[in-house]
């Protein structure tokens, strides 16, 4: 192992000649395969299997469809993975998706301009997040129970407001924003059939934008490190000057906002919204986040991993429906994937920790040799 490391060490020494003392730190930032979220292997495996086994799966049209369908879940899994990393769980996501969706749909139906209704919807999601945050931080109710109860409240609000009927609106001049969101950014035709047409919908662009903003905030500001610190050990984080209640409330508000965006994504295509649309979405988000290496105990995991997890779920669903397999077997397969994914995560983590230990031992040995030479 040491021999294989030597060329890279030489290269790094050359690269960082002025800062020789820092070579060790620079070296540890070197990209390794284990830096990738584990779910990328599961994703590649599932994707390769689907491409080989299922005819029509690996076509531009189908992959565009798959990505567009996965938009809402990708967004929700971002929100879920952030709350999981902090040691909380947000089971209200599904309910909030329904509630904000119904609010926006009713406003649109009554001829209120699309901009205003979208803003009201986003604000409603954030307000609900604030409510959950207060319940969790001030009343000291564990997040599992608080969000579980709040999800029921939100879903029930959605049902009451919509009287359990689908809310639909007529596209008009005022709903131009929604029409634009439902459009395509570009369409490339490789052939005449729908399968050979690559489309890039605005929804996907919106999703990618939101995810990029979250990722940049996560990496470049102290958001990410604070979330990890709070998830790993709340007491230590508090003593280090991070205010847990403030960050927790902020994360729940953020969850509400992302849930509202997800409900926009779900309703623009059909110009209508069904009040039960968010049902079980929170569980799918948990599954996606957990497949992506997030732990329910907090303090580890990653956002890209969760997004990959969401894609895994949709690849399975898409491939099996193309294959003509009923949804009941899909349920079984998703359950099995979850277990297999968890086992793969466990193994990958075991390998990573043992490798780390070996690396530390090797480094210590290397340092000792170096000192003797001096």
């Amino acid at each position, binding site marked *: 192992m040491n021999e294989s490391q030597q060329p890279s060490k030489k290269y790094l020494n050359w690269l960082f000649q002025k800062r020789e003392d820092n070579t060790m730190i620079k070296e540890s930032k070197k990209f390794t395969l284990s830096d990738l979220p584990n779910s990328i292997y599961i994703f590649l495996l599932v994707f390769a299997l689907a491409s080989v086994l299922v005819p029509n799966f690996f076509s531009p049209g189908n992959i565009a469809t798959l990505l567009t369908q996965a938009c809402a879940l990708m967004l929700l899994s971002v929100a879920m993975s952030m709350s999981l990393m902090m040691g909380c769980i947000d089971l209200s996501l599904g309910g909030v998706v329904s509630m904000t969706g119904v609010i926006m749909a009713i406003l649109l139906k009554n001829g209120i301009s699309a901009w205003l209704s979208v803003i009201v919807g986003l604000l409603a999601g954030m307000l609900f997040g604030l409510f959950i945050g207060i319940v969790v931080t001030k*009343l000291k109710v564990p997040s599992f129970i608080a969000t579980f109860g709040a*999800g029921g409240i939100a879903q*029930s609000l959605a049902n009451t407001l919509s009287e359990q009927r689908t809310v639909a609106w007529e596209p008009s001049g005022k709903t131009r924003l929604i029409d634009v969101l439902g459009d395509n950014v570009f369409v490339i035709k490789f052939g005449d059939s729908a399968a050979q047409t690559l489309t890039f919908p605005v929804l996907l662009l919106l999703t990618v934008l939101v995810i990029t903003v979250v990722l940049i905030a996560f990496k470049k500001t102290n958001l990410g490190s604070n979330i990890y610190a709070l998830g790993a050990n709340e007491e230590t984080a508090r003593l280090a000057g991070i205010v847990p209640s403030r960050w927790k409330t902020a994360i729940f508000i953020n969850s509400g906002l992302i849930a509202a965006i997800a409900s926009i994504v779900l309703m623009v295509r059909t110009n209508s919204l069904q009040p039960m649309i968010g049902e079980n979405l929170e569980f799918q988000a948990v599954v996606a986040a957990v497949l992506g290496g997030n732990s329910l105990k907090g303090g580890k995991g990653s956002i890209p991993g969760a997004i990959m997890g969401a894609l895994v779920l949709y690849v399975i669903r898409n491939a099996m429906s193309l294959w003509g397999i009923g949804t*009941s077997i899909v*349920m079984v397969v998703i359950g099995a994937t*979850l277990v297999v994914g968890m086992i793969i995560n466990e193994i990958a983590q075991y390998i990573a920790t043992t490798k780390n230990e070996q690396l530390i031992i090797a480094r210590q040995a290397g340092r000792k040799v170096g000192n003797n030479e001096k």
Partner: protein
Amino acid sequence: MKSNSLVSKRVQAKLSGMSPVIIMLVVFTIFALLNTVQGINFLSPSNLSTIINQACFLIIVGIGQSLVILVGGINLSMGAVMAFTTVLWGDMLLKDSGINPLIPSLLILATAALIGCFSGLMITKLNITPYIATFAVMYAFRGLAWVYLRNRVIYNLDKGFREIATGRLFKVGGFSVTVPMLIALGFLLFFYVLLRHTNFGRQLYFTGANPTAARFSGINTNRIIVLAYTISTALAGFAGLMFMARLNSTEPGMASKTHFEAITVSLIGGFVMTGGIGSIWGVAGGAIVVFTIQSGMNSLQLPGELQSMINGLLIIFAVFLNHTLANKKMQLENDLSDKRLKIAGMDNVKGVS
């Protein structure tokens, strides 16, 4: 507070330990008052017996969920196991099958226990979080139930078998005592004795309160956890039997919300998600609260959509109340033990508690 006598403090401490009872009384009073305004006699014996009779099914599922919550886990697979096991062996329980209903019943219980053992092993051996492991089991077995039965419904069950959910024993002034009530009472008593007066019960509490300490003191925590999941899921199987007998049919989509109801019941009943705290009688209180609200709202003719809102608010409120009262109880008990020491003249002795 300082002027309070010893007796009143003791009473307060006792009261603080009975939060499920308090919630139950509050809910009963509210709905009785609301219904009296509407001119309906909510507290009539027949209405009470209906509520308790319906709650019995939830009590059994609630006991199962509580056992798992007691060891710091959660069991999301209950509803799916109920559906899967009854669908799998349901054909043998049909009226004209000619098989003694005891055999399929035992098979259902055994299958459920096996599934529970499987999830327990996944949690302890593969180190998967309980939430995820039981979620996977839920998904897989709900799917298998659909795959097995397709779009058929198993209907028209054996008469003798249906007695376990529909049987009536005798009437006391309008309050009819039914078979489910007896079954639920039997389960409550059995699990009360099991949890409070046996080794296994103490080990359950200890494992939930602090798994590491429990392991170091020689308890095989893995075995305890697997057993907790096995018993819990077997109870789900039993609840499935009762559910099926009451509806006289079974289908793969049945009991789709049962695991949530079970969690609600045990949380209202004073169990804590982190484990190690809770009393089995709270489950009965929680189940009765849930059905009181349901029946009260029905008789007030409120829309059904509001039901889940009230349940959501109730869970948050109940957990908040349980938490606050538990803290208060601990504080009061500390005060009491201080006072006792003072009376005994030992307050100056350091290190005595």
